[in-house]
């Protein structure tokens, strides 16, 4: 027996509405006289997230209160007591409407144009206390003007008061069919009007030839996206410019219970159970977006869901810090999400139809990240040991160049070549010829071509032939392809309803016999006992039980775990190569 249930330490009081979850602090929901005592309950050296409530700092939308009239608006005092309590403090500035605030956070006098989702329904969300919060459009020019004035005042306030804390821009949204959709998405009349003006101004940008190439539907959606991106950027730039040195970058949050249709499920209460939100939290994580539970009542998440979100949040935030070069020292000792694959997709169906997701579900569930575009490949320092999967149907000439550059830099790439345009095919062939690369060809299920250069591997296959095959043949195909990359993972055998995910970190000074340390976290959100078996493997050795609650663990011919309802175990394994 390795360990036994012991309640994990909670950072904050769970029944306190000023702490809605994941160390967020709603300063406007409690008296400033209680701030100190409440914040003192948080474990020292953790990070506290303070979302800024624009509407709370202004009555009129013209003048701003930062502790002058209402002491609860004194962010300097709040930052000081957080520092006194040895907490790192991060302010979150919404860059779009947010579902946990009335009017989406817009001051009352500016809330004139209701925001609408793409099905014509006005946005409405339930918060933790059952309030219905509606959104008002950020496409209203008056809202943007007022927002700019607010962030300018906020920037001045931070500078004059010498507040020593970062302000992170927060893009809120929800996850639909494994895609993050920002709350900036709005189809209200005010959006349509703005779009009309935008189209008039940009009328001459596209030539007649271009117009013929794309259908009207595509053009309409492209223009909407362009306009939306432009206005979103206006808000981001306003915040970045006004906050100067205090600006800490952007974080994306996906709110559980915050999809536009969730109000219909949530209002009955029938879905207010962790089993409903668990898979949703995992789907959010696949996009490197932070899941937030601030809309959910404490009754729903006072269990394994809270443990899960805490782990997700800390590892995704750490990754974000590392991407921004803020957390190099922490890298060696902190766990990051383990991701073997990066899957690029404009349309998930194409990967579904060739059996990729069914394959991943069998042995690599939740070990991949989904990307909508190739933006991060443009960063000159980008390097990754992950296997990158692209579908040529989605790619143009510039994008295939980025992918080939990734391969040249030692990247591991899988490319479905069917559906590639002539230009993309020509680029690939010219690349192979000019670099004098030798293609190894195998005809297994479909034509597979493999090219190696240094550490880089490029595997190309024709996906169309897979479409007609049975699922078991598709799985055989993916097994053979992924084998080429030598990806190693735990083999788990678990009951239905159990969720697991893995994090990784470099081996420490006293762990030199291992290549890396992997932490396997297992959760049972159901109301029943569940069993998990980690099959024995010569590549992994169990080092320690890192965390556990309501579990019984035995080793011998693998590791056998029995999880009680709401049970959670985290086990560290050393990985040998």
């Amino acid at each position, binding site marked *: 027996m390795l360990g036994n249930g012991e309640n994990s330490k909670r950072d904050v009081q769970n029944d306190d509405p000023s702490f809605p979850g994941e160390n967020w602090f709603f300063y406007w929901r409690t008296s400033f006289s209680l701030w100190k005592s409440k914040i003192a309950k948080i474990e020292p050296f953790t990070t506290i997230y303070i979302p800024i409530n624009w509407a709370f700092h202004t009555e009129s939308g013209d003048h701003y209160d930062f502790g002058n009239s209402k002491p609860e608006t004194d962010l300097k005092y709040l930052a000081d007591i957080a520092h006194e309590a040895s907490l790192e403090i991060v302010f979150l500035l919404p860059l779009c409407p947010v579902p946990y605030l009335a009017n989406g956070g817009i001051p009352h006098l500016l809330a004139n144009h*209701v925001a*609408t989702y*793409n*099905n*014509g*329904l*006005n946005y*409405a969300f*339930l918060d933790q206390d*059952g*309030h*219905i919060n*509606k959104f008002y459009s950020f496409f209203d020019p008056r809202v943007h003007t007022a927002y700019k004035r607010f962030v300018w005042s906020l920037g001045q306030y931070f500078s004059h008061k010498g507040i020593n804390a970062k302000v992170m821009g927060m893009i809120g949204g929800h996850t639909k069919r494994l895609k993050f959709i920002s709350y900036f998405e709005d*189809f209200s009349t005010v959006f349509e009007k703005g779009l009309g003006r935008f189209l008039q101004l940009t009328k001459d940008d596209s030539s007649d030839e271009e117009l013929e190439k794309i259908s*009207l*539907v595509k053009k*309409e959606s492209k223009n909407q996206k362009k306009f939306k991106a432009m206005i979103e950027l206006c808000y981001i730039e306003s915040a970045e410019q006004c906050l100067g040195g205090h600006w800490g970058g952007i974080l994306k949050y996906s709110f559980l219970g915050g999809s536009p*249709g969730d*109000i*219909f*499920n949530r*209002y*009955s209460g*029938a*879905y207010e159970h962790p*089993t*409903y939100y668990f898979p949703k939290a995992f789907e959010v994580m696949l996009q490197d977006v932070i899941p937030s539970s601030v809309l959910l009542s404490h009754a729903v998440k006072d269990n394994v869901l809270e443990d899960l979100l805490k782990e997700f949040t800390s590892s995704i935030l750490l990754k974000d810090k590392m991407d921004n070069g803020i957390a190099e020292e922490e890298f060696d000792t902190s766990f990051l999400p383990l991701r073997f694959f990066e899957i690029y997709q404009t349309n998930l169906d194409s990967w579904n139809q060739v059996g990729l997701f069914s394959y991943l579900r069998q042995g690599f569930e939740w070990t991949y990240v989904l990307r909508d575009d190739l933006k991060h490949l443009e960063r000159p320092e980008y390097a990754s040991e992950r296997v990158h999967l692209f579908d040529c149907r989605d790619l143009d000439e510039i994008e295939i160049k980025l992918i080939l550059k990734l391969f040249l830099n030692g990247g591991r790439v899988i490319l479905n070549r069917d559906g590639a345009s002539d230009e993309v095919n020509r680029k690939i062939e010219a690349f192979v010829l000019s670099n004098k690369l030798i293609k190894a060809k195998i005809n297994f299920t479909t034509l597979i071509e493999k090219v190696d250069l240094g550490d880089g591997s490029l595997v190309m296959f024709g996906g169309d032939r897979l479409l007609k095959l049975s699922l078991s043949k598709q799985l055989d195909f993916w097994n053979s392809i992924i084998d080429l990359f030598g990806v190693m993972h735990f083999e788990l055998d678990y009951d239905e309803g159990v969720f697991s995910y893995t994090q990784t970190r470099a081996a420490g000074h006293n762990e030199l016999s291992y290549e890396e340390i992997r932490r396997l976290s297992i959760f049972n959100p159901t109301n029943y006992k569940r069993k998990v078996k980690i099959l024995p493997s010569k590549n992994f050795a169990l080092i320690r039980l890192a965390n556990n609650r309501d579990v019984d663990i035995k080793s011998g011919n693998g590791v056998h775990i029995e999880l009680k309802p709401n049970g959670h175990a985290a086990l560290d394994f050393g990985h040998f190569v």
Partner: protein
Amino acid sequence: MNFMRKNVESVKLIYAHKSSLGITKETDDLFGDDSYFVIHFFSKYGQILPEIISEISKDYPSISSEYPIGPFADLGEIKSFSLKIAKIVGAKEVCLLSVYDYNNGLEMVNHLNEFGDVFKSNGERIVLIEDKIKSQGIMERLFS
């Protein structure tokens, strides 16, 4: 979750003309001029699942069982569709609401406790006839 198999008092649906969904004549000629879609269909157990919708797909071969459900030629077709679903889930009444009426009703409510009022005040209620008969007492049936 298989909540929808349980008997429910009522089912509620919100429908929209295709123009509310961004489908316009200029951009899509696949649907007729008067196509309607069901964008939410739910009971106290949450959203009616596509599996249940697909149970009556024989009667509506051209509709998608995924949300938004449709296209329907007119409101009459939506009503008959919703009554069939109501029977499957054992509901006694259907409440239909247009997007326009939903949005207007939503303006008036601010708390979960009031959300049902959006449908009560603005929706069109249809009581299932069979249940009407069942609900009559024996004496009423004998003498009616």
